[in-house]
């Protein structure tokens, strides 16, 4: 069994992991799991949390503002 087949089989065996594996799949390459790129995306996710909350708490623009 090659690695991609293993991923496919794991998605079937663990349906609740399927969407996560789909997200992970692009980072698996011939030279291994490209962890640095994956972690950069994780960091981008953290920054998005900051901006999402800042956006959520942004004072409303009203006539005066």
């Amino acid at each position, binding site marked *: 069994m090659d*690695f991609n087949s293993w991923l496919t089989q794991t998605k079937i065996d663990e349906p609740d992991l399927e969407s996560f594996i789909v997200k992970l799949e692009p980072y698996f390459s011939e030279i*291994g799991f490209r*962890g640095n790129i994956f*972690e950069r995306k*994780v960091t981008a*996710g953290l920054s998005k949390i900051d901006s999402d909350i800042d956006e959520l*708490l942004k*004072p409303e623009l009203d006539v005066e503002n």
Partner: protein
Amino acid sequence: MLKINKITIENFRGIKSPVNIDFYKGGRPTSALIYGRNGTGKSSIVDGWEWLNNSKIDYLSKEGVSEKDYPHKLCDGENSYVEIAFTHSDIHNIKALFNKSRITTPIRSGEYEEFKMQAIYPNYLRYSDLQEFVYKSKGDKYRYIAKFFGLEQFLKNQSDLQSSFTRISNQLAHFQGQLQNLEQSVTKISGDTTVNETTVVSFINSIAVKYQINEIIDFKDSYKVKQALSEIVEANPIASELAAWKAFQLKLNQFYSLPKVVLDCVEVETVFNELNKDEGIITKLILIDLYSSASETLAKLEDKSKCPVCDNVFEGDLVKHIADKHKVLETLNNKKTEYITKKDALVKKLEQISRKVAIIKSETNEKVLLSFNSFFSDIEFLDSEMPNSIIELKKLFNDLERLNISERNDILKIDLISEKEIEYKEIVTNKIKALSEDKNSKDLATNFGNVIEIITGYTSYLKCEKKVSYLSNITTKLNRVFTKLTSFIQEQIQNTFTAIQIDLNYCYNFLESSNQFLKNPEIKLVTGRDKAVELEIEFADEKISPAYKFMSESQVNSFGLAIFLSAVKYFNSDFKFIILDDVVNSFDSFKRPKVSQLLAARFSDFQVLMLTHDQIFFDTVQRDFPQWNRYKFTSWDYTTGPRCSFSNNYIEEIQKLIDDDDPIGAGQKLGRYLEMIFGIVNQNLKTPIQYKLENVYTLSEFFNPLVKRFKDKLKLPNKKHIISNSFLEFEQGTIFRNYCAHYKNEATQFTSDEIDGVFKKWMEIEEQIYCDSCKSYCHLENVDSIEYVRCNCGSLDLKEEEKFINN
């Protein structure tokens, strides 16, 4: 089944002119045996095979040898290739040609992909591989085995996932800690034990109500309260100033305590100046390892007066000289380490102060700025000057002529500001105290401060909480994928271990049959997160792990060879071919024939390429496998490579000399052959032989006890063993008796027919005592008090009744 026809190598490693190794004989596939002393180019064949398979040669890569050095030096990378011809319906030929423009990627032709599907497990084993595997650490063994079990990509992904998991988990722990701190600061302001939107909004509203500000429902509207409160504060100059001072007090409390640095600078300068005095010697610090190795090497040498590097004799005490030099450099090295440690600590301190300066510098309230005019002008100065001091300190030792930072103004100023901590704090406290006399203004300032703080704190809390949840989700799932992957790899390894276990035991027990106490080796997987493999063996019915606690080097090598053979058998069921390069090297001489016998017993359907530099092992193998093709690499030449000739075995050579009517040559060769065989059989039968101090025996001194031994051990009442008749015919029907005494003497005239008579008759006897299935001569064996004279596999049993005739 994929069978090899021929291996051709040209212009590769030590091979210049094409070397052809044939694996066909009489229209049938066979194996090949190569004998050559060390340095005759044998290993270039294994290197070629590895390169063809993997595009690189692992042990050379580890030694830093580049692919550009693979072709023979004289060919300039042109026409350097390895080519294999096969007999198979789909796979006919594969070839790897050195690619000058892309040295790591050979130009491949033929049915390479199809071939790789059949050759799953690396089917070559060098003596060095055997040594390396056996002494690898538990973790390295795991990686080695997983790689060779076709799990390399799984293993790489597993390792990468684990690294990512660890890094993201660390991030998660950081945010969890931050969340806890934020929770504490919010609860401290709100006075509630829990942190959520309701408690925070309730606290803000409790202040809003006090100042007739509209209450809010959602936290997102908290800015409205803050804004309204800010307007009230602005309208109240006392409250406004009080709020500013309170905010500044918070910043000042973070700014102080400020560490002093002048003393640290002086210490660094002192060590620097001491080192600088030894500037001449410091360049010699690179030699410290050399002196260290020289001390260790000298301790092991008998002649301690000669330099182990240049081989020159040293006048004086070399050991003391090296020890003194080493001591001087070691002291200097310690000083250099002290300088680097102190300097780095100082840089860290200054950078920390720099960060504090940047924060306090952001103060904007005019009243605060005015009151602390001198303080803020010092801060401005530090902000502009400190980076220069840090740059100076970060310079490498060799780039600094002198170091004089303790007198720099920014450094002096840091200590001055540090000393003013109490004074400054007191000013602020007094300001706050004075402004707090008006209770309403004080409460207003406090409430305003609290509203700002709780809004900032809760906003950070919300972000942090989300980040913790986000990272927890990722780490949980990543961990599940990692755990599943680990289980899968371990399951695959364990399954393979189980599958090869029977063969592994058979091979090891076969090779080590002389040792009754150490048997039944096993490869054990250390399960769980630790990726490790342990070798286990049964010692007197007790499982011992790690196995080599009780094993000799030779036994450990048997273990390694057994793993290799059983794995190749399991994985490469469609391509039965193995290369064994000098693997018997570390085996005791009596055990070497076992390798040959094992191949006959368990791997008779395999094609083998056996390389050896051991003449006796070469003779053994060619005796056991007369159908194999045999080559001798007689010498090596830079311009051509190995001098390679097709080699006959003893029997073929004797017959050829007889056919060529060379009775002297034939007689001498036959004599050496008989001496070897008599020795083996006497050893197998434990024949008592008269000891001779000079260790020179004639053929009859081996032969007569041998005949007697057979007679003694093969007895039945009123019967005679057929081999006794054969011996009688051998002695009486040929010139053997006369030949025994004179075969070494070239002056003695035997005819080719007479030598042929001895030879043919002996071959008839050999047929009776040698088993062609298990490639062994019969031996004396005692099992359950019953004595046997039989071969290893038992199919040849000289004590069978039909082998006896009436007297």
